[in-house]
């Protein structure tokens, strides 16, 4: 049977273009749930102390936060079926408080689960081929990928097959589950990096070499957190057949030599930084050369098996431009703006990629209610082959929508409060949960995002400002990616108060850069003013078609800094 026969695609809830568990995957996930159920039981009866239990609950995504436990559910490579999205909504209603939070690692977090309910939640997830395996802990985390995978016009190959291949290989790895620190892998198959691969422990970029073979450029040692680093190239071109063997070599070098004396120096980025990329490359290549490669001999056929699941859905043959859409846009300025801002070109004529913003003006970035999740599930079935994506920008993507259907889709989204036309604009803010939920946070993030969003609530002004990534973290761990925001905001504690440090010039793409600090921290209430001054300075200085980051690069950091000083009273702002 073909994976995507039309009858299956037409069936309600039928997943189409993503991986499906076979009996072995299904058994494995059920056994993981049973194991966790037993671990919880042993914790409650005292066979495991909290210090012993912690790494095991974390490896199943369960944290203890400020007000309650938090469960992080894996959404591998950010792809969801409608049925899975509905299950997430059901879990939110049954075991949580009717909402969930989509994260920068394409996962979903529940903020209020009970420890004693968690095994049942995991069983419910297993019913729809989902889990929380390795969404935390010092192990290989959920592998992320370009959220436009399979539909982007600039793509060499769908990165999700690689990500799924790695998901399986890394699940419950006997050797690499007790690493010095967490380990994050991201994959892109496109010429534009939408997965921030240079900010990951390993970044994989799918390439075609001169001979026409597909392989990977392998980057290692990127990462944010206390000491941010951009990944460095360790291998220019790795043939696909060697992928698992080569990653195993990297992991073994890291597991043996990564620092374990200080958790802030335990990521592979520090090993690469301290030893130098050449030394790490030598060690990895030596290990790689000495390995018994016969165990990997069936990797290519397994990859092919997995890749078949990611075949395109049965698109209709359509004209490249929809007359229906054009007419509707002329009649409806709100729809017109939505299409201009939130809709991206699709590789298939007549189709479009729709970004559904989870950043309503003044809202909590990344949060969705169970009702909104169901609306999105329904919409994906009606208009998009039942498939959804989660982006690392904390939005939801409908990857295959007919241009003809955009007006009808927009009406449904608008009615559900999901039609904010701000994708990529200043109010499309990435924000970690911060001190409103997180026990590691040193300051709140969400209220800062809300205030900035409200300050720029005029959508025509936002469009005039153009593409601008504002990213906010509530502590140095940088879950809100502040280092790679064109405007980054980091919440810290200063003299018993929340204080915010602002950086400029961060870039998450192939031209990756870490933002530079503008000056001393400011109080929460000053942040929107500072951002507004920076934006006004950019608008005054920009040349035609420049984005904020373009102008900042041309004009220079010093002048942005000076602008703030002049704008403030005697440097009072910064």
């Amino acid at each position, binding site marked *: 049977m073909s994976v995507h026969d039309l009858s299956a695609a037409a069936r309600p809830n039928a997943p189409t273009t993503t991986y499906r568990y076979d009996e072995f995957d299904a058994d494995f996930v059920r056994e993981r749930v049973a194991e966790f159920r037993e671990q919880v039981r042993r*914790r*409650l*009866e*005292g066979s495991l*102390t*909290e210090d012993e239990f912690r790494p095991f609950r974390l490896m199943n995504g369960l944290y*203890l*936060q*400020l*007000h*309650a*436990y938090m469960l992080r559910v894996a959404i591998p490579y950010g792809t969801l079926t409608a049925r899975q999205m509905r299950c997430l909504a059901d879990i939110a209603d049954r075991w949580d*408080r009717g909402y969930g939070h989509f994260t920068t690692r394409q996962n979903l977090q529940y*903020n*209020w*689960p*009970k*420890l*004693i309910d968690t095994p049942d939640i995991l069983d419910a997830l297993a019913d729809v081929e989902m889990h929380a395996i390795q969404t935390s802990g010092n192990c290989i985390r959920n592998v992320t990928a370009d959220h436009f995978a399979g539909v982007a016009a600039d793509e060499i190959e769908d990165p999700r097959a690689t990500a799924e291949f790695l998901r399986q290989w890394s699940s419950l790895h006997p050797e690499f589950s007790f690493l010095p620190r967490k380990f994050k892998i991201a994959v892109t198959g496109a010429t534009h990096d939408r997965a921030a691969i240079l900010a990951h422990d390993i970044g994989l970029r799918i390439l075609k070499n001169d001979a026409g073979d597909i392989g990977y450029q392998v980057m290692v040692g990127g990462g944010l957190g206390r000491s941010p680093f951009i990944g460095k190239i360790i291998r220019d071109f790795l043939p696909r057949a060697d992928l698992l063997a080569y990653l195993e070599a990297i992991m073994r070098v890291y597991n043996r030599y990564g620092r374990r004396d200080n958790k802030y120096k335990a990521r592979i980025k520090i090993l690469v930084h301290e030893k130098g990329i050449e030394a790490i490359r030598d060690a990895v290549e030596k290990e790689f050369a000495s390995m018994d490669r016969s165990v990997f001999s069936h990797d290519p056929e397994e990859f092919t098996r997995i890749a078949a699941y990611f075949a395109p859905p049965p698109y209709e043959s359509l004209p490249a431009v929809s007359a229906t859409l054009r007419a509707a846009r002329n009649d409806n300025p709100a729809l017109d703006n939505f299409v201009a801002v939130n809709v991206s070109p699709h590789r298939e004529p007549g189709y479009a990629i729709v970004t559904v913003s989870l950043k309503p003006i003044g809202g*909590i970035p990344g949060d969705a209610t169970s009702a909104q999740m169901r609306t999105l599930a329904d919409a994906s079935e009606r208009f998009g082959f039942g498939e959804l994506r989660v982006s690392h920008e904390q939005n939801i993507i409908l990857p295959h929508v007919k241009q003809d259907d955009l007006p009808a889709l927009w009406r449904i989204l608008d009615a559900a409060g999901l039609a904010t036309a701000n994708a990529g604009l200043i109010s499309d803010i990435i924000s970690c949960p911060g*001190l*409103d*939920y997180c*026990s590691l946070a040193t300051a*709140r993030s*969400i*209220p800062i995002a*809300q205030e900035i969003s409200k300050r720029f609530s005029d959508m025509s002004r936002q469009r005039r400002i153009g593409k601008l990534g504002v990213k906010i973290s509530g502590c140095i761990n940088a879950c809100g990616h502040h280092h790679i925001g064109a405007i980054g905001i980091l919440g810290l504690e200063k003299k*018993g*108060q*929340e204080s915010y440090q602002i950086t400029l010039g961060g870039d998450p793409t192939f031209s990756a850069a870490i933002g530079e600090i503008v000056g001393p921290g400011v109080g929460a209430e000053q942040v929107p003013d500072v951002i507004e001054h920076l934006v006004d300075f950019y608008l005054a200085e920009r040349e035609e078609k420049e984005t904020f980051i373009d102008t900042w690069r041309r004009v220079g950091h010093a002048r942005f800094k000076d602008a703030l000083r002049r704008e403030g009273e005697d440097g009072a702002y910064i």
Partner: protein
Amino acid sequence: MAAFKNPQILLASDLRDGEVMFLGASGWERDHRRARVALDAAAAAELEKIGHAEYASNHVVDVYLTDVEIEPDGVPTPLHYREKMRIKGPSVRRDLGKQATGA
């Protein structure tokens, strides 16, 4: 032991459901207004001792003392903004957490 500066209460999280609790006069309370307040170092040490025992017997996790001030009505209020958050709930969702039930 650090010098005793302010009155203190003992916080913890319930192992089974994760909710924030406060050591009261006779066991754990879910409302900070019923927390037992240590007014000197010896009383704080006593709270900690009970907390350690409760941790060891797998009832609570993340047990620690936090500084408070005593309001005119006798209610202890944490001094630090982090613990102020913990006695209420998320500042961005006033409908959730302890604040939603009038705590």
